[in-house]
């Protein structure tokens, strides 16, 4: 992701508002998970946007991307230090990492991607302090939407709300200035 790509002022203001809502709902330090029902819902933009908003608010923000789309981008080197985090057997190491991040940052933003298929993302939503659902505006309601809502209820996740995204966000992703928003190191795979 090109760091020079920036959001519009209106989008930044909207993200700041959303961040204020998130901040008002959860105590710090906290872990906020961003998820969506379909890949088009663009959880990545919301996650990075909220990290940016937190950083603008003077918070120490940590950002972890679990989504498949973001993971594929990591191979391009845009986001250093991010690696594929396997699910299942790594749950314990993930929990250890979360605990350490809580002590290191005021807020940790986790992009869980499409959580219906990301088992680790589901775990993150369960142990996280809040979940923000990203939904692409003006798209057809699919069965994945109802499945996501059902899963969130079943795991007892604390849902903060829904943020609608659009094509403008997808084409102009939020910029993250390195040094102010920490890109969390990869969780090492141990087999």
């Amino acid at each position, binding site marked *: 992701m090109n760091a020079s790509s920036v959001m519009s002022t209106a989008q930044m203001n909207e993200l700041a508002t959303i961040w204020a809502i998130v901040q008002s709902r959860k105590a710090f330090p906290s872990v906020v998970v961003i998820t969506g029902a379909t890949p088009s819902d663009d959880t990545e*933009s919301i996650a990075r946007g909220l990290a940016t908003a937190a950083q603008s608010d003077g918070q120490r923000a940590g950002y972890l991307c679990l989504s498949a789309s973001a993971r594929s981008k990591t191979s391009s080197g845009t986001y250093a230090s991010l690696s594929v985090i396997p699910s299942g057997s790594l749950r314990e190491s993930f929990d250890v990492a979360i605990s350490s991040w809580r002590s290191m940052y005021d807020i940790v933003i986790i992009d869980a991607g499409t959580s219906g298929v990301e088992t680790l993302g589901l775990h993150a939503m369960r142990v996280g302090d809040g979940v923000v659902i990203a939904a692409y505006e003006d798209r057809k309601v699919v069965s994945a939407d109802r499945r996501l809502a059902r899963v969130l209820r079943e795991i007892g996740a604390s849902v903060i709300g829904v943020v609608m995204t659009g094509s403008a966000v997808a084409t102009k992703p939020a910029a993250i200035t390195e040094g102010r928003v920490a890109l969390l190191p990869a969780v090492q795979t141990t087999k």
Partner: protein
Amino acid sequence: MSLFTRVVDAVRHQWLVVMCVLLVGMAATVFVLLGTHPKYTATTTVLMVAEPPESGNASYTTSSGTKPLLSVDLASLATATTVLLRFRQDMGLSDSLETLQQRIHARVSIDSSILPVQYSANSQELAIKGSNVLSDEVVRFYRETATTRFDSLIADFNSQLAKRRAELTGFDGKLAVAAKTYPYIDVAAPGTVVNGTESVYQRLIALQIERDALRATVNADAAAAQSTSRLITNAGPLAERDVVNSDSAYLSVRDQYAKDFAQLKKLSSFGSNRYPGLDELRATVAREAAIVSAARQHAASAGPVSNATYVAALDAQANANTTLASDTAKLRSQNEELSRLQAQIGQGRISTDVGRIRRDRDSAETAYATIADRLAKTIADRAEAASTGSVVILDRARFATKNMFAGGIIIATGIVFFTLWLALTLAVMIDGTYEWLRDPQTVESIYGTKLIGSIA
């Protein structure tokens, strides 16, 4: 959400459907433009000559009641199936009749006897040839139909007349059978004489008149007989008196008795019985009274028949009784004859049937006359139509004009608009069958949580 926004969203969502419909519409438009778009049109002018001047409107009818073929009807001949078939054969075309019909335009304005026959084709030569050939076929077909219509009518009238004739023959046969079966029944109209014999009605009336006259005669005879009888009754004593008074012996004795009786009364009036001979006189008078009575009885014993007047009265009575008996017998005979005839006529069913047959025959005869009259008029109209109501080609087509906005363009434009409308409608309809994440209500109903922001 406004209608425009909704349509735009529907098109954005269902773009594939919209594209498919538009592609089909474009293909149809191209097909119409390439396949049915004629480029040239030629016109031939046809004139209907000798049309009745007052037939400028459709209310004109011939004397037979059949409307003639007017110029306004001529236009429909151009697209008649017979004309189209002949036209297709003449032109050597293989197009369907519907296609040919679309290339033909023939319409005449009201109050005009001129029909422009237009034919459109892809080439100028074909348009000119087609227009001329089509006009020839229209004229040919008109000449056929102008008399064919009357021929059909005439054939129909002849058929009806034959049927009526058969009916009349049947009625005549029935009447003949009735006349043979019931000879006393008047099968002819009242007042007519059939075969020199008077009808039963006339005979009946004559008999009734005779019977009335005879009845009056009998009444007169009865009155005469009664009068003579009364005369005899009254004349009997008078005749007897005349007979007694004409008896001389009786008159002599009576006169002597009258004298002696008068003498006796005279002497007795003196009041004394001392007159001599008085007793003897009394005895004489008494004796003479007995003699007178005996003489009277003797004179009366001859009876009134000896009186000429009385005998004449008796003769008159006998004659009256004879006449009365004779006339009474005649009257009885008349009454019997009348009863017999009335019994024959009194068979109402037969009389009614004959009357009904006669009425039916009269009706059939009237109908026959009407149809025959119409047939005559139709034949005259046919002759008139064949001679005067003809159609000629006024001006043949020599050139063809290029069509800028012919039917193909109009149809193609219509297809384009229809396709566009269909695409949008289908998009909106299909889009309406799905649920969309557009508003906070939908989001909250799906996820069960609030919409906290939007960065779209």
